């Protein structure tokens, strides 16, 4: 028997997937679990999106027309919690699950059952979170940042929110451990770290951040719980505590968290741009070091979210300079993406369109970030719509566009079908136009003084709010196209090749589309001095 056949012939589990719902409930296959994460994140994206529609509907005109102000606050809170923890993070984990084992020539993730547990915690955690909307006192309405003492005025929902976050944290930590073990332990023999695709590198670094900071969030919300129910005084000055302590702890988690949400996006874009430029990524090792620098710096800048709380001057200065410093490695990455395209042989299929929009629009988000980093300027911008504009640029045109780019890029590999290109392009162009209609005016609203987290506003902000809301409704409807693309591609479409894109390089493109249920049960051969894009690349299609 060939080694390959021996490998699958003598194991004690089935060669193909289990039948029916067991396949999904009891999954241990990284491809199935990746699909579970992606479908879950899409559902959460739509849920969070509906909440955004409610927000923008209320903000369409001055006055309180659509919802109760308390409910509005719970919408802003839940919109963020759902999008951050339910849409963006699980989507990137889904992409990681699908692609990392194939990219490193591994048979599966290091700990497949743990992988499934990481996933299945999430539907339960979000069921608990969403159920709070129906409780006495309503859902959490103190902002996703949950600052005490306001957060402690949450009604019955308080412990449910806290435990829901504990569960999400457990899921993320276990998932991150799995990813690190897979990347460090399961690479095909001969595949050196500096030969891995950049998507794998960015996930390796992201996983370290996750393990370091999710426990910090757990600690923060645990202190909220004990202050709320067990009489502790962590955040109560009367007892010797300090509400600002929560802010420090939360943002020590919170800042790395936003880098957790963007580093995998950098990885996706670093896979796509070389493919559609038909050129290797410019400055591979620099990209790795830049990613590592960004991750390290992200751990020491948290208080730039707190410039206005009254920190000592030395602290304010340190955090200002450290924050501005992050722009340097980030800028290096942007220059390297552009340099990758220089003298490339370029085509602009949908994944490339989203990746290019990412580069331009994320950079704009980065510019507003540098503006916010300048402490005295931030005293004006803090808690205004300028901040809202900044983070929506980096998260929507950044993370979300990168996720969509990755989905378009890898759908042919996953399903064996090409997605409908025209529909994809419609989705792209409508999205990119409307996302700017939605968020660009918010810069001006913020600079003009409109505070955030308010359901009603002064009349001078009316016009730009209306424009923003129209952009939101159109952007929201446009995402239905994305759902249609996905469904149509899963069901059918033109057959996709193993190398679904002419310029694509890497181990995953050696496998058929769709790949077999178990791939690389015997590791592929790696050429020892191979360029990262050329590993195990035989001459051929």
């Amino acid at each position, binding site marked *: 028997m060939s080694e390959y056949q021996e490998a699958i012939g003598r194991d004690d*589990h089935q060669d193909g997937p289990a039948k029916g719902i*067991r396949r999904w409930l009891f999954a241990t296959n990284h491809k199935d679990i990746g699909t579970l994460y992606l479908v879950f994140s899409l559902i959460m994206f739509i849920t969070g999106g509906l909440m955004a529609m409610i927000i923008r509907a209320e903000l369409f005109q001055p006055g309180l027309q659509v919802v109760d102000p308390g409910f509005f606050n719970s919408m802003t809170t839940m919109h963020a919690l759902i999008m951050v923890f339910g849409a963006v993070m699980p989507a990137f984990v889904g992409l990681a699950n699908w692609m990392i084992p194939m990219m490193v020539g591994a048979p599966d993730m290091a700990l497949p059952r743990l992988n499934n547990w990481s996933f299945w915690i999430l539907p339960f955690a979000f069921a608990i979170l969403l159920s709070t909307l129906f409780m006495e006192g309503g859902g959490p309405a103190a902002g996703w940042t949950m600052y005490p003492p306001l957060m402690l005025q949450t009604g019955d929902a308080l412990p449910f929110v806290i435990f829901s976050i504990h569960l999400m944290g457990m899921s993320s930590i276990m998932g991150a451990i799995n990813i690190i073990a897979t990347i460090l*332990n399961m690479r095909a023999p001969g595949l050196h770290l500096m030969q891995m695709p950049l998507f794998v590198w960015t996930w390796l670094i992201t996983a370290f951040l996750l393990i370091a900071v999710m426990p910090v969030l757990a600690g923060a919300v645990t202190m909220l719980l*004990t202050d709320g129910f*067990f009489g502790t005084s962590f955040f109560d000055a009367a*007892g010797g505590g*300090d509400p600002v302590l929560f802010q420090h702890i939360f943002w020590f988690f919170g800042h790395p968290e936003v880098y957790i949400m963007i580093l995998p996006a950098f990885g996706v874009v670093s896979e796509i741009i070389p493919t559609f430029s038909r050129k290797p990524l410019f400055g591979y090792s620099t990209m790795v070091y830049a990613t590592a620098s960004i991750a390290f710096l992200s751990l020491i800048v948290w208080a730039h979210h707190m410039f206005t709380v009254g920190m000592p001057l030395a602290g304010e200065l340190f955090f200002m300079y450290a924050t501005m410093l992050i722009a340097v490695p980030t800028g290096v990455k942007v220059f390297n993406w552009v340099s990758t395209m220089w003298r490339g042989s370029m085509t602009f299929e949908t994944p490339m369109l989203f990746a290019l929009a990412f580069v331009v629009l994320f950079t704009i988000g980065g510019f507003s970030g540098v503006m916010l980093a300048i402490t005295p300027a931030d005293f004006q911008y803090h808690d205004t719509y300028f901040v809202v504009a900044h983070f929506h640029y980096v998260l929507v045109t950044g993370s979300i566009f990168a996720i969509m780019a990755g989905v378009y890029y890898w759908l042919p590999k996953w399903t064996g079908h090409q997605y409908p290109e025209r529909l994809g392009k419609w989705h792209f162009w409508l999205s990119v136009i409307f996302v700017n209609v939605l968020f660009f005016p918010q810069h001006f609203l913020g600079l003009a003084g409109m505070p955030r987290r308010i359901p009603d506003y002064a009349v001078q902000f009316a016009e730009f709010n209306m424009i923003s809301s129209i952009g939101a409704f159109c952007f929201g409807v446009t995402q239905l196209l994305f759902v249609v693309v996905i469904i149509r591609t899963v069901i059918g479409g033109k057959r996709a090749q193993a190398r679904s894109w002419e310029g694509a390089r890497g181990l995953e493109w050696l496998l058929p589309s769709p790949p077999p249920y178990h791939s690389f049960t015997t590791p592929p051969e790696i050429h020892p001095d191979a360029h990262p894009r050329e590993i195990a690349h035989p001459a051929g299609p």
Partner: protein
Amino acid sequence: MAGATGGYYVPASSPWPIIGSAGLCLLMVGFARTLNGGGDVALAMFGGGALIIIVMMVGWFHDQIREGESGMYNAQVDRSYRWGMGWVIFSEVMFFAVFFGALFYVRNLAVPWLGGEGHGVMTNMVLYPDYLATWPTNGPGAVGGTFRLVSAWDIPLVNTLILLSSGFTVTMAHRSLKLDNRKSLLVWLGLTIFLGIAFLYLQASEYIHAWTEMNLTLGSGIYGSTFYMLTGFHGLHVTVGLIMLIVVWFRLAAGHFSAERHFGFEAVAWYWHFVDVVWMCLFVFVYVL
């Protein structure tokens, strides 16, 4: 794939993850409802959830033990487990770091500011003119009333010696295992367990004494908060470690593990050392200083 061929073991589909997820959900909902005043139904949900989680752990570990003992795990799988346990312990270190960080912030920044130092001068003058910033403190509001302190050189010192000794005994047990001296191994590991139980017993009696007779409770301002949260989570981790040590003891008695391959034992030993190190930090920063 099958360890028999030297390939990496990829397990078949397993019901334990989703069972565990459902159990966690029930546990959390039950706990939350209890906190909201939920009564018997809530407690039942909490208990039911805990039971389901225990069933999951027994089932899952049973599968893993069967796989390990029948040789399905090769050296690469062993390395995955090493990475896994190492990073789990790191995440726990970060969790404790939050509470130590809070302690540091409160002692060095928040309380002095409440006492009028630095930019807290006006806050103190206006709001808390009678407050003297010392440590321990239950704040300007004297929350929880006066309390007395646990002396570091009493039970805490004994507990320090207990845990340090248990670190030594578990290392001796490991040596015995590597030398394939099973009898000696069971004695050393049994000693470790006994020391762990002694630690927990002494901590519990100290807690009862402090809570009922010295008025040192969770509600004793920031001192009580940090004291109980740090030592409490530590005690919880000691309990978990102890359960693991006991399970490993029984597995060793049943003949599991070999002198060469025994990561299950090592993982628990690592965890036990971690618990010991956290205690040392606790002893210094919570009890002594």
